[in-house]
């Protein structure tokens, strides 16, 4: 065994060494051989902010070659501008283009930059909106929004607990299945939202769709591992498998709400949505169902009130953090990643609930399972229409 160790090491390293030799060869002696086709530069405008008498655009070199940004324009009209730190952008590097401009609130604008080969890249904004000043007021405002769309509705949803507790076995199964329906919808919703962010804000170089798929699966696997260990620990006390499931649901929804909070905070900061009372009502109604999802598995065990509040906070508070982070420094990549983590977590929770139901009920009632899932999906769809 010991004698074969060096052999083992060599067999592990040999392919890597050969790969490195191939890369060095391709970059070195063979590089001229591979020079064909036209390499096109690409610049993405990631963020546009409107401050007093100035428009600020964050640009990133998302192409395969270095570029020089040499010209800025507003609505395709050349404007003098400053670019920080400088005009040359290496791959992935960002710069801030500052265009002195007396803009009008509520008016659409298109901001463009031209690089040294004369190619212009532009991004439109539906309505100019003064960039939010990072101060205490904004902190409180974003926190309140997060609280209203995250914490409050979940707490309200938890109030269904006494009602579900009084239900018979079949009806209880219906509600668990209903929860599964809700969660499946939330998961799909998160993936779609992440895809939209990928399309609108993330340059193609990040392979947004593949990143979403990767993160969803990784998050699913990670939470599967955590869930397994959690249920094992709880087995000793036989205290409540329901609580474990609820905790998993709360964590999954927590990730989801973090992503949602990031998106909402960013939308506020970028002025992309007129944040109406109506929108808040829509979000709140939608998210009330998340409280129900947490409450349902708890009903077969003795749950204490503070535990339930704790679960509600685990699920809801991330929305507040999301709003803060999204509002103060929006990163499309971050938002996408957290939405994808949320989706993976939620799909894992759906699996947990299913296994739990299979264990608990010897005869798995197909009717209540399918009816529950369908009802959950439909309710989520209807509440989503309100947003």
């Amino acid at each position, binding site marked *: 065994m010991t004698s074969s160790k060096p052999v083992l090491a060599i067999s592990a390293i040999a392919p890597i060494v050969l790969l490195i030799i191939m890369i060095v060869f391709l970059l070195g002696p063979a590089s001229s051989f591979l020079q064909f086709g036209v390499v096109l530069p690409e610049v993405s405008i990631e963020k546009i902010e409107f401050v007093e008498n100035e428009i600020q655009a964050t640009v990133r070199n998302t192409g395969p070659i270095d570029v020089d940004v040499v010209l800025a324009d507003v609505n395709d009209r*050349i404007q003098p501008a400053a670019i*920080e730190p400088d005009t040359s952008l290496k791959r992935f590097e960002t710069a801030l283009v500052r265009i002195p401009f007396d803009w009008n609130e509520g008016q659409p604008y298109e901001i463009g930059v031209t690089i*040294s080969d*004369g190619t212009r890249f532009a991004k439109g904004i539906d309505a100019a909106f003064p960039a939010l000043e990072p101060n205490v007021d904004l902190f409180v405002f974003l926190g309140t929004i997060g609280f209203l769309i995250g914490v409050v509705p979940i707490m309200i949803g938890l109030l269904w607990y006494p009602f579900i507790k009084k239900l018979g076995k079949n009806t209880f199964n219906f509600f668990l299945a209903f929860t599964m329906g809700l969660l499946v919808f939330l998961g799909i919703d998160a993936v779609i939202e992440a895809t939209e962010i990928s399309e609108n804000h993330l340059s193609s170089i990040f392979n947004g769709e593949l990143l979403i798929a990767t993160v969803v699966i990784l998050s699913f696997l990670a939470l599967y591992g955590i869930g397994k260990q959690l249920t094992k620990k709880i087995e000793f006390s036989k205290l409540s498998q329901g609580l474990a499931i609820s905790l998993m649901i709360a964590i999954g929804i927590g990730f989801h709400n973090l992503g949602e909070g990031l998106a909402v905070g960013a939308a506020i900061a970028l002025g992309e949505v007129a944040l109406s009372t109506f929108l808040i009502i829509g979000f709140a109604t939608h998210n009330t169902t998340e409280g129900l999802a947490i409450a349902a598995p708890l009903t077969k065990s003795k749950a204490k009130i503070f535990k339930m509040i704790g679960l509600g906070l685990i699920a809801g508070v991330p929305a507040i953090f999301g709003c803060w982070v999204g509002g103060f420094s929006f990163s499309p990549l971050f938002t996408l990643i957290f939405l994808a983590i949320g989706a993976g977590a939620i799909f894992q929770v759906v699996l947990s609930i299913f296994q739990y139901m299979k264990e608990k009920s010897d005869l798995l009632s197909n009717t209540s399972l399918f009816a529950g899932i369908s009802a959950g999906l439909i309710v989520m769809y209807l509440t989503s229409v309100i947003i």
Partner: protein
Amino acid sequence: MQSTIQSAKMFYILISIVAVSSLYFVVPSVIIAEETPTTFLTHTGLVIQTTGDVIDPIGYDGEALDFDPDKFMKEFDYGEVTVLDDGTVLREYYITARDDQIMEVSPGVFYNVWTFNDSVPGPTIRATEGDLVRIHFTNEGSKPHSLHFHGIHKAEMDGVFESIGTGGKFTYEFYAEPVGLHLYHCHVHPVEEHINHGLYGAYIVDPKEPREPADEFVFVLNGFDTDFDSENNFYAANTIPFYYQHHPIEINANQNIRAYVVNILEFDAVNNFHLHGTLFHHYPAGTDTVPSGYNDMLTMSQGDRQILEFNYKYPGLYMFHAHNTEFSEKGWVSSFLVKENTGNFDTQIEYDDII
């Protein structure tokens, strides 16, 4: 059990490595603002302070670009002159076409220009009515090119159906007629592409009886579509956007000014010319001796040209530009700096020297 925990640990380590490395993309590069910020005043009066680079083609004060509009606007190619036996003046010109040059068409913007005698526009060809014009054309480009002159000439001298291939030569010969301001350009298909890349120039036929003495300028109104979307990215009088904005043209008050204005703009159907602070008499194609009007606006289609005559009553800085604001805000905006007249008219054309 032990191995499950270990593999779980490995998994979390992997996740955290991925998370940390993703920060590279998420967090924009940190800007270290140690250097003292420069103050930057725009032409609209807005002020910002920056530690970065200023990109301002309108108030450009950097190094001179390859093409010098100041030189071009007063440079006329009268050709090599010989008087033939019958008394006819023969003017011989040498024009070489190329299509491989990269020129800085606006500060920092490099564009593949196609040139006559290494310049966009090509040289301003100038002759007197009745002169025999002989142009020795060489195509050193990689594509076929030609010279098509506006004016009166034989069909085989029209430069349309006979394109000159790579390395080819052709001698165009015709009498300079009629009197006026004309133009020449490459007429090889696709003509739009050959013109957008810069194959054009002005052609002036002076009357035998010289025009009134004046301070003369050539303005070729052109543009560049640098990203090939059939829309111009840059507009200008004489190639460089905003050039006469940061280098106003100095002229004297109460002195006759004559401007030869040629519109060779592609993609946009109409270009125009608006003069501030005074009005001009204008002569369409310069063919008539009586001005068509007294105005401060000219509307010109592709290939249109006008001779403008005017003078300034008061000294000061006056704009002239496309009244189509899109064009002016993309570079076709210029200015005259009118000085008190000192009575020293040394900028006049001395016609006697030419022949």
